[in-house]
């Protein structure tokens, strides 16, 4: 046994095509592509979530299936269309309802589902690219995170310093620059 043994992974499909479209639509509303740079879909958040559900977050797969289905049925009830096919204003309206749990009834856990997807979207956007998100370090660029470096000089901990951005994932850092 090794201390680094991870839970087993499989390549089984996590989502149906409909579920995948629905998730992509949600994450692209949580972090849209706009003048401030690429959004969640562009940096790979949906892929991040799908691959996490395959192993580390296996136990949350059913919450996703139920939540995505609830979102689609809310969309169909209101417009006759799936969530992914709605225009962004309608999508935002339904997502807000989920976030605030304003329509209790057919799906009790809508706020919990919204928080789950939001949390995972932030992980995909701002986490280390080695997990499949944060493509081209766009998430780190967005918030001005100056990047992983093994040794940080005292100057780089001053408040008024402009820090040269490095673009390394943890794996590259550990295998490269020491």
């Amino acid at each position, binding site marked *: 046994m090794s201390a680094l043994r991870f839970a087993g992974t499989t390549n089984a499909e996590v989502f149906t095509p409909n579920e995948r479209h629905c998730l992509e639509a949600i994450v692209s509303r949580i972090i849209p592509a706009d003048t401030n740079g690429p959004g969640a879909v562009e940096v790979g958040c949906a892929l991040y979530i799908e691959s996490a559900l395959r192993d580390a977050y296996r136990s949350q797969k059913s919450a996703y299936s139920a939540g995505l289905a609830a979102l689609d049925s809310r969309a169909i009830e209101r417009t006759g269309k799936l969530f992914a096919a709605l225009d962004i204003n309608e999508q935002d309206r339904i997502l807000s309802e989920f976030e605030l749990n304003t329509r209790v009834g057919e799906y009790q856990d809508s706020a919990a589902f919204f928080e789950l997807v939001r949390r995972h979207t932030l992980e995909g956007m701002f986490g280390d690219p080695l997990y499949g998100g944060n493509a081209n370090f766009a998430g780190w660029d967005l*918030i001005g995170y100056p990047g*992983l470096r093994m040794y940080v000089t005292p100057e780089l901990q001053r408040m*008024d310093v402009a820090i040269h951005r490095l673009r390394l994932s943890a794996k590259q850092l550990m295998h490269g620059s020491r």
Partner: protein
Amino acid sequence: MAPVNLPRTDVVLIGLGAAGGLAVLPLARAGLKIVGLEAGGWFRSADHRPDEIRNNIRHWPHAVQKANQEIPTARNGRDGPPLPRPDYHPMMNGVGGTSLHYWGQSWRLMQWDFKVRSETIRRYGVSAIPPGCTVEDWPLSYEELEPYYDKVEYAIGVSGKAGNVQGNISRTGNVFESPRQREYPMPPLRAAGFADHMAEAASRLGWHPYSPPAAINSVPYDKRSACFYHGFCGSGGCPVNAKNSTAVSTIPQAIATGNLKIVPYAHVIAIESDAYGRVTGARYLSDKREYFQPASVVLLAGYTYENTRLLLLSKSKAYPRGLSNNHGQVGLHYMSHTRTGVVGLFSFDLNRWYGTPAQGTALDDWADDNFDHSEVEFIGGGNLLVPMEAKPIEAANMSTFGKAPRWGSSWKAFVRENAARWAPVWAQISTFPFEDRFLDLDPAVKDSLGYPVCRLTVGLKETEERAMRFMQEKAERWLREAGAIATNQLPLFPIGLSTHAYGGTRMGENPERNVVNGWGFSHEAPNLGILGASTMGTSGARNPTLTVQALAWRTADYLIRQWKFIAE
């Protein structure tokens, strides 16, 4: 299948974490043969990569093989509703235990923490002790523990600036600290822009900021590197061995004596005892086989929840209610730090990205009995801390201070501007034991082997809520003085499942009210010693580990001196 009987040893130690991994050094040096049974495995420094998702979000999935099977449950009061059960255990399994990835803040307690009951009565009268509170003075004083604090600071390596060396107060250290015999072995961790900025603000308020002590090397120590300040240290192991976990400090030295044998992936399921009430050894599982390790002395160091649980699970003729529990004290006097904080938003970049959370600025002006409590209706108080280090997901998942929605384009614009402009002030507040807060075995929830998990019975006290609100107000003043343009109070975190869990096997002279004596040995099973914060009767306003380690060394020293009396 009957367990495999192993050759007898002097001492069998259960758990090689912060406490157990420290005690092995004096024991091995004294020539005692120790077998250390550890549920986790060994880590190499290269396993400790800066990885927020693995370490902080998913909580070390590679190192909680055992802990995550036995996450304690909790309920609010004896008849109260169950509280939500987290999906991870806050502690970990590995040689070095949770000291592998702790923050490394290494405080001593204050004189007052050892004498809370008598000092409170002396200064404020007996009515100041909250109703139902079971706090006692410790069976030892700060002065008796001081030499062991000193030994531990030098053995593992602690960076800091003394505020009180033998009564000489230094304004660059913590002026409230109790007297120490000498300086720290290393200077404090390096200064950082934002930490200095906060220290200046505190000084303007007339408070006494200082750089908190840490078991992290500010300069090379004992052939180990100085800190690289790369960040990812809070909940991260150190890739350059500058964080002084027992795995890189005391354990290798103990192994070098030839007297310590570590058995990794050994999951202890019971401590055995004979008809006379003496313990005889530990039973454990390894790779699905059962073994019995006989020993003259058993030392239990599996962290508070497991210390309590293993005792309660280890029933025998002599101990029908669980080992060392004939007085019904195992599990009682449970407590954990209450915590809260305030986050502040600034109009300029703080550059907290790098460094370590142990590197910030701390204040004890509102801790313990450092201020007059006549008007406040609680005892004790909190330590305030501004940590360095901001990891990207954490930074982006910031409070929006009511200035933006939590998602969408305007949120994105908000975090773009502000992710580097906020900081928390944390308050860690002393808690005290109460009659109605305790640990026992959950009647329904079991671990993967079928043993009941530990159950917490907790509940917030009014005095605690007042203390937390009081500390929030101080934190807010500090942030405003430093130029925060908006502040937001963090939730009040009451006693519950914690990385700072105290009690369950409390230390005290009276066996009617305590499990272990003033040396850490069981009042009932004379050759059973217990290491860890489960023996502590007060928490102080600071993290437990240095005190846990000083106590562990003292228990080991006592065992060495009294070997014939205890072991034979």
